[in-house]
């Protein structure tokens, strides 16, 4: 399985309107130029969640395939564990995305717990209390914001696409990332720019991110 045909998990380059207008936070645009072999380090950040401006009131499949441009095969084969507002989703065609929903995407998981949480799996009965109830039929389509979390293989495969387009993340997550990222990230981070102004890479570690909303965009260079 994996990326269908080993290629991009995105079926098309969809122009996604990524910038919601966060309220109560000052915003900051951070642009980093990083080497491609450092991309996997961003998995932990993608797992904390980032916000996207989307059309809500649609099915999960519509959001993933039509709005975000993820390949249908990838959705069906790779994304085997899905949570909508913390509840396990069995059917991507009937689960409806609401304003400010949190959507988490993961590959299939090991163990009985993994089998139980898997969408439409043989053991779904074991977690009926936390299964997402179908919400189709009550949709009113509108502009809205969702939070997306990407885990494990899905973060490695879909993450770079989102990071290159830019993602909105909470400042506290950005700060935690810079604090905890292994040291070998820094030599592979070649350039940094804040609100269009270049600055020394090491300075981004010292900045106060906590009370901001960060628009992070990566430019990726081949390693070496």
């Amino acid at each position, binding site marked *: *399985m*994996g990326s269908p045909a080993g290629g991009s998990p995105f079926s098309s380059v969809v122009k996604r309107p990524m910038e919601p207008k966060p309220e109560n936070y000052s915003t900051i645009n951070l642009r980093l130029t990083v080497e491609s072999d450092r991309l*996997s*380090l961003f*998995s*932990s950040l993608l*797992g*904390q969640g980032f916000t996207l401006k989307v059309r809500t009131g649609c099915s999960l499949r519509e959001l993933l395939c039509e709005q975000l441009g993820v390949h249908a095969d990838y959705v069906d084969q*790779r994304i*085997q*564990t899905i*949570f909508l507002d*913390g*509840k*396990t989703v069995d059917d991507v065609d009937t689960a409806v995305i609401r304003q400010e929903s949190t959507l*988490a995407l*993961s*590959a*299939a*998981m*090991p*163990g*009985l*717990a*993994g*089998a*139980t*949480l898997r969408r439409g*799996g*043989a*053991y*779904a*009965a*074991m*977690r*009926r*209390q*936390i*299964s997402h109830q179908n919400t189709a039929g009550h949709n009113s389509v509108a502009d809205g914001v969702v939070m997306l*979390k990407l*885990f*494990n*293989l899905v*973060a*490695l495969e879909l993450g770079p696409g989102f990071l290159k387009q830019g993602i909105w993340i909470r400042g506290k*997550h950005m700060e*935690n990332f810079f604090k*905890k*990222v*292994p*040291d*070998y990230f820094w030599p592979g981070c070649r350039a940094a720019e804040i609100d269009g102004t270049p600055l020394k890479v090491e300075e981004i570690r010292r900045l106060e991110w906590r009370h901001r909303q960060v628009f992070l965009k990566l430019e990726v260079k081949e390693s070496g």
Partner: protein
Amino acid sequence: MDKLLRIDMGMDGGPKASEEPLGDYAGLAGRGMTSAIIAKEVPPLCHPLGKDNKLVIAPGLLSGSHAAQSGRVSVGCKSPLTGGIKEANSGGQGAQVIARLGYAAIVLEGKPGDDTLYKVVINKDGVEITPDNSLKMMGNYDLIDKIRETYGDKVACISIGPAGEMKMAAASVAFTDMEQRPTRHAGRGGVGAVMGTKGIKVIVLDDTGMPTRSPKDPEKFKAANKAFVQGLKKHPITGEGLPSFGTNILTNVINEAGALPTHNFKTGRFDGAGNISGETQSEIMKARGGMVAHGCHKGCVIRCSGIYNDKDGNFVTKRPEYETVWAHGGNCGIDDMDTIAELDRMDDDYGLDTIEMGAAIGVAMEAGLAEFGDAEAAVNLLKEVGKGSPLGRIIGNGAAVTGKVFGVERVPVVKGQALPAYDPRSVQGMGVTYATTTMGADHTAGYAVTANVLNVGGSVDPLNPEGQVELSRNLQIATAAIDATGMCLFIAFAILDQPETFEALVDMIGAFTGQNLTADDVTELGKTILTFERDFNSRAGFTQKDDRLPNFFKEEPLPPHNVTFDVKDEDLDRVFNW
């Protein structure tokens, strides 16, 4: 694997080893073997630390052959933690080497008259049992270093640390891995304490000169093993997810499900989960020159394990598993990977079950001995266990004892054993198994077999409590059968999803043993094992009231979903109606 090795530590004139044919135990392996011997030979009302208890170490059906993933070993006894029958299993090199030495089981029995500590060496020439008090209270790491000096780096070891010598109910039995490190443990139920009562510190296994076990039909076996390996490699879990992230791939997902027991089972989400997730852990390991995909024994092609180094690139421990990361992490509010790795190393060195220790420290934190999230305090509490101070002895006897001593009501145990890393309020079907299993809150590995062989899963009505009961019943039957084969449990998804991989496994077992396995055989084997175990437990005094989760699971709603465990007692009592 056509004989039993019995080592009687209580003989007049000193310990004595003897070999005997398998007799009634022929054809059994793994948990099938350990539970059959315990149920038949151990008086259920005996004291677990007394002379009448036995410790049985049995490799899997295909251990010692070229079959992939066949290196699990079962360790059985009457448990000092639960008071019931116990099977704890482990990876490491032990299963392969015991099997090549020709033993279907090693049975330690009797009890020495004094506190002399012994070393047992088993090789092609026989068994040597020698007193060696210089090994007393050694940690597993120092012990194995010392063994290496004498016996070289090819032998495999089975050992106990200070916790086993102090007969703590959370003590494990350690098995060395491919690098001869004591990183693999039969952790659950206090099996290490029983080894301690036998006065055996270490069993040194040397299979030099012994052949690999050969199948009845070598050609068919080779082809089936090849297809089996291909199936494991192509599946996204066994071929990609586990080698990339290890079992700790689960932390983020279980947390998102609201099923990650946090702060001693108070909530189902941990704020710091991202800092200790498999994704973060793998990046730390890579950055420090550790190994991300690594097998716990030769013949593992999945390689869910790895090497965790410190900041300077020095080995600390194997990749801490999901259960360990949860127990020492979220359950205690600790979100620092290095602290969790240090605690894992200490558990392995003292010879302790990581789940029981994390749960006991969580209960101690609830009691106010430390704040949740205080990493230094957690390390200090574990050091107390290693030292055997009065406080350490309390914690080293597990969560139930710790809760009792410090007057804590929320104690997450069934039959005295701590629950693993999934809150049964969110995943209620697992709660049914935790409540009713013969082992005490554990043992849920048989899911792929239930779907393939017993044909259950999809047909179960999710809204009917009987559905949970039926699933749990079949899972427990299948798990007992899988545990008897000695195959690593992580083969499960590949055989669940890929019929050809399941067929390859069945063919491989058939070609090896010369007997074709049918669905009925698997079901019967599982039922027979569970019947032995239930019978033992009932003779040991267990009743339906022991098949219950603690009350707080029914009374305290678990955030974020605010659910309680709502499977009725009468439904739990139907699990074993077959």
